[in-house]
């Protein structure tokens, strides 16, 4: 479920790449990304609206594979 203001979309290839998932979890200051036991991506839904729009997650993955959406812009 998206947040009220922010949603984050991650391509399947990135979400299943343990290396990249670890990186995402590291860069996000408000803990929106976590790794499941098997190393795949868990989006922490209750933290989505804490997103500070720093773009660090976007820079951490291949171009276009992580998208941060402002739901209040549509």
């Amino acid at each position: 479920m998206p947040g009220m203001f922010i949603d984050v979309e991650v391509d399947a290839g990135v979400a299943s790449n343990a290396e990249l998932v670890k990186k995402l979890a590291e860069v996000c200051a408000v803990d929106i990304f976590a790794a499941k036991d098997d190393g795949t991506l868990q989006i922490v839904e209750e933290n989505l609206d804490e997103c500070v729009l720093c773009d660090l997650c976007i820079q951490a993955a291949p171009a276009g594979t992580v998208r941060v959406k402002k739901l209040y812009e549509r």
Partner: protein
Amino acid sequence: MRFYEYESKALFARHGMPLGQSRVAGSPEEARAAAQAIGGPTVIKSQVLSGGRMKAGAVLFADTPDEAAKHYETVLPIVVNGETARSVLIEEKSPIAQEYFVSVTWDGRRKLPVVLFSDMGGIDIEEVAETHPEHLSRTHFSTILPLSERVAKEAIGAVGVTGSDLNRLVPIVYKLMQLFLDYDLTLAEINPLAKLEDGRFIVLDGHLDMEAEARGDHKAVLDDLGIGDDETRQARPPTEFELAGARVNAVDHRGVAGNVVEFDGNLGLIIGAGGGSLTLFDAVRKQGGKPANYCEIGGNPSMSKVKNLTKLILSKPGVDKIAVMMNVVSNTRVDIVARGVIKGCIEAGKDPAEVIAIFRIPGAWEDEGFKILAKHGVEYCDRSVSMYEAAGRACAKLEAN
């Protein structure tokens, strides 16, 4: 943070300052037993933080243990300046020859601690300062040189005290200076400091106040005295609503959304920061608004902290609308606060457009913030609308209700 008299005396005793015998009583039986153990006449004193207990009749004298027990029951229920007594102190009544006054406090202008000493104790010292200035000395002392008895000697000597009185007073004043610095006090006062008929000096009543910032450094002492972290010792005890506000702030360490003070109006306030809150609270009151609360947000609080504060304020009975206002912000983010208040309204089952009277926070990330507010139909304004005008708009909306 103020100490009760009995706590102050426990600290005086630790520093070897001379005191009469005393005991705290929690029942008439204990009062009787205390008087019995002390032997002879006693003073029965209500333990309150505010001054004026003498005037309120909450200090009485007893000749016998039975009388002490009776006075206990008289004194305990007396409300002094809106404050009920915590307990009652039974103290030996001593034959007094003369009363002195001594206090150590900070002089914010000189930025130094200062000893005030007078040989006219027992009465209001401000009165002495006005009517008998030559009987009150002010002696500043250094905080980087080793503490010295010289300062005490000069403070006492300056009002003309000499001989054995001077020499007996010096260690008491010196120890008070020590106590002041050791416990990070903002006030250490003995009034009266009594000279007994036999020439000895004892502390009759004392008043200590510890700096709130330093409480963490003196945890051991506070624990010994049984003073818990939740005892704020402000002018009045915190309300349930205020305690809930403190819990909201304690949930995470990102920024501040706290210092909630309860009032009984219908306009909930989410305001900040320190100076901005004071400014806005005045502006609301000046324009006929009735605040339901005071608070301070700042330091870039998390979305959820703002959300929970919003929910708390909306849950307060009698709150019709909230106003969200700050000075121009540079650290706190407009968009994060906007998200927090809107989410808080919705989770409280209210329509943000209805319940938020005005949102006036200009500054960092305001473009994003204003987009969010516009989407939810909330009335907002930028820095071209002053804090005073924004508060006025909120007040007008409530009046139109």
